[in-house]
């Protein structure tokens, strides 16, 4: 499956799960800030990706859980070095450049882009192959 084909399937999933238009789903679009995803949508997207690609997604594999509530990982509203390492370890499909520049907890959600989702699926498909 080519990256373009993966993108097309991811777009179809997001259009269905978030009731957005095709052209809103660009690689740079942020799921939460731009496409309006809420927490239950992440579970919905996870279910729909499983159906579209035939792989299984474990709890917390797609998007971090608990990290931003842990005082060891977040201090004074900012993600600590340890927190950043934890996130990077758990979520290799994300690009952390923007979070490295602005460590605010509120910025964690912004790393969740359409492109990250395509990366995630590409990695899952490679592992399965």
């Amino acid at each position, binding site marked *: 499956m080519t990256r373009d084909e993966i993108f097309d399937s991811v777009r179809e999933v997001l259009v269905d799960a978030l009731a957005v238009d095709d052209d809103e789903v660009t690689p740079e679009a942020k799921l939460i800030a731009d496409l309006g995803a809420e927490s*239950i*949508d992440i*579970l*919905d997207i996870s*279910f729909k990706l499983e159906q579209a690609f035939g792989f299984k997604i474990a709890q917390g594999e797609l998007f971090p859980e608990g990290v931003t509530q842990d005082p060891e990982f977040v201090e004074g509203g900012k993600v600590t070095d340890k927190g950043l390492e934890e996130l990077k370890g758990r979520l290799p499909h994300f690009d952390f450049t923007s979070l490295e520049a602005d460590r605010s907890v509120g910025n964690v959600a912004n790393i969740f882009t359409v492109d990250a989702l395509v990366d995630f699926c590409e990695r899952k498909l490679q592992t399965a192959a």
Partner: protein
Amino acid sequence: MRWMWIDRVVELIPREKLVAIKGVSLAEEHLHDHFPATSDRPATPIMPMSLIVEGMAQTAGVLVGHAEAFREKVVLAKVSKAELSEDAVPGDQLRYTATIESMTDMGASTKGVIELIRYEGGAPGEPREIGRVDLMFSHLDNNMGGVEFPEHNFVFGESFRTLLRSSGVEIPA
């Protein structure tokens, strides 16, 4: 009035499918306001479509709750799709069929078909599909990051237990 929008469970395949029925009755107070007579039309009692969606939510919610023996607090989290093409009126029976599409510790997604059975020519007609409602449910205790909820299961209360018991569905201990 009890917030019960299904009358009876008629089929249950655990973790897979649940079918429930509801008789639309003129005794339901809201039908007299939905819609009352106006100067240019007589009273037109029609079951509100939002309550048909609720009926499917209860059907699918019981299916999802039953899967974990009603230990989880199962709440409706998202109406993924709701399409209805025909009105239900007093005397009609609605038949809700819910199936589980995906389910994890966090929640479940369900697909639902709504059929209408109407008396025509003195006999009940064949069920005909009038809509589809797809839903997402969340297992509350697994999703709220430490938020405390009451110990008792406030989602599946006594009214639902009565419904299941009177439908002959075994309630897990």
